[in-house]
């Protein structure tokens, strides 16, 4: 039997094409997520073993113990800071990439920009450890130039975490910004300058507003990824950094308290969704003001 409306059958049949992906996602993502959600409502017994039954006590702990809720606030603040830093650092690089004509040099620059994504996160992070350790390149330079008598404690510090996480996530801001800036019509710049605007005014009144979708996308991606990041802060900053990813890792690997780890994970997920929605809302208001 064929469809009376042309294309409808094809569309209908088209749903079958996504079925394998849907089954894959439901089986390997949604089902474990639901089970994790169920675990977050489980009481714990001796040695923190999950018990049958339902309780809100794990969420109560997450939202009343400063050890947990303090880490959520610090994580959100860190993610916001990293998102701002990534956009600020990515913009000039993306601008340079977008303005360059297609060619070997542009391809080479692009490969350099995305090269961190092609390297294992552990290798990248250990690069920072090698640079910032007591006998690392930075400390050797500080001591050799007489700026310090003793090596500085650069590792296990919060600034080191922010620097390393910004480095790891920078390509996620550069890529959408390059796409947004590359798609701009150059005639608009010429029109702006023909009408008397200088390069700075053209950049601020034409380029920046038109590249806003790239800024928004880059900032949101970096923010969401920074909310859940834990290996880089763990290796560079140590387990004492008050970030939620590290707290979850600790609860699973050393305290063996899975229900509170699950509750903390869902609190982080909720905070990420709400913060991302708020940020998107703020950007939308900004965009409306710019475009009238």
């Amino acid at each position, binding site marked *: 039997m064929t469809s009376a409306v042309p294309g409808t059958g094809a569309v209908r049949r088209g749903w079958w094409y996504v079925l394998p992906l849907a089954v894959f996602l439901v089986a390997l993502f949604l089902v474990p997520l639901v089970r994790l959600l169920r675990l977050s409502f489980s009481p714990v017994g001796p040695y923190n073993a999950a018990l049958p039954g339902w309780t809100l006590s794990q969420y109560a702990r997450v939202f009343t113990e400063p050890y947990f809720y303090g880490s959520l606030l610090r994580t959100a603040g860190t993610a916001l800071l990293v998102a701002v830093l990534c956009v600020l650092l990515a913009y000039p690089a993306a601008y340079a990439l977008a303005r360059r004509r297609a060619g070997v040099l542009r391809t080479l620059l692009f490969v350099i920009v995305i090269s961190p994504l092609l390297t294992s996160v552990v290798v990248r992070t250990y690069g920072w450890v090698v640079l910032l350790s007591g006998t690392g390149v930075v400390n050797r330079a500080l001591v050799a130039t007489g700026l310090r008598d003793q090596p500085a404690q650069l590792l296990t510090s919060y600034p080191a975490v922010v620097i390393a996480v910004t480095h790891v996530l920078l390509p996620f801001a550069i890529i959408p910004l390059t796409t947004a800036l590359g798609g701009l019509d150059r005639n608009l710049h010429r029109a702006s300058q023909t009408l008397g605007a200088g390069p700075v005014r053209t950049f601020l009144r034409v380029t920046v507003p038109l590249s806003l979708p790239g800024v928004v996308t880059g900032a949101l*991606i970096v923010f*969401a990824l920074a909310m859940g990041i834990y290996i880089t802060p763990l290796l560079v900053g140590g387990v004492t950094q008050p970030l939620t990813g590290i707290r979850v890792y600790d609860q699973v690997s050393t305290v063996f308290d899975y229900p509170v780890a699950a509750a903390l994970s869902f609190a982080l997920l909720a905070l990420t969704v709400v913060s991302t929605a708020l940020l998107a809302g703020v950007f939308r208001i900004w*965009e409306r003001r710019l475009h009238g």
Partner: protein
Amino acid sequence: MKGGLTRLAGAGAALTLALAACGGVDTGGSAGTGGDSGGGQGEQRQITVTAFAGAWGELFKKSFVEPFERETGAKVNLVYGANAEWLTKLRAAGGENPPFDVIAFTPDASLPAASAGLLQPIDTTALTHWKELDPVLSGKSAYQGKQYGVPLTTGSTGLLYRTDHVKTAPKDWSDIFDKKYCGHVALPPLTYNPGLEFFSALVTSEGGKLSDPAAVDRAFTRLETLKGCVSAFPANAGSAATVIENGDAWIMPFWDGRAFALAEAGSPIGFTYPESGPVGALTSYFVASGTKNADLATKFLDHLTAAQNQKPFAEGTWYAAGNDSIDYSEPFEQKVEHGPEVFEKFTWVDYSVATPKLNEWQQRWNQIFG
């Protein structure tokens, strides 16, 4: 433009989710390789055994697994990893069809596993070498009057130090508070075993117990004197070795075996067994509840506890073995303190008290050093 913003933001969100799900950015993930532990008549019997990843695991393979396979004809599927992932998988199995037959655990993980029924009591009469095993160490894998495991080796947590910077070897735990080391102390957090072992030593060296809040308060007051003096907070064996070897720290509470191994490799490292008593850091082996290979698992434990098998492993790792009848080599005897009299003096972390309190204590610790 608004449509462009929405499309880009949507694509970004999808990319983020995809990357997070695939672990492309910053996720851990481990690849467990649980073996097929079935086996009927006529087929080669198989058993799945866990071992700590790294040099420890490689030596375990040579010392125990390969000889066992040669002697019995059985195949041992060795799964490398660590406590946390093995306990997670045992909890997921819930005592039925466990992914491992024989598991290595330190007491912080074995007690939760035994209390949840994930490990099965062992029949010590089936173990040829049971009477050669140290009773203090064996007692640490007993739970509610039943024997669950056999001791493999025990480390002693004491003071590891750089011999080129620390001219006079420290004698007791109190030496780590000496102001001349200020700025060069490495302190593992309480959520890493040596950190909790050091904290336990602080509590017990003054006659207190972890279950006594006043004694715990005194230990924290003592720790506060280290504020501003700690240069590193290593939370795993790799970073602990790194901070000592690269000079970030000169003194650190850590295990004797690791210290002697670093010294053997040429690093200027010394180790002190504190006068008021080092803290025991034991590794024992257990049989999982619900295994279909309980007979072969018991045979493996028997093989694991034999003096001739434990000797090369102990000497290779620089950790004292659970079997007291071993005749160690001269270099080992000169360095590693061991034997019933030594183990009797050990301080042990009381995990029945420490585990429920760990978050609270770590929070207090963070308020000092965070």
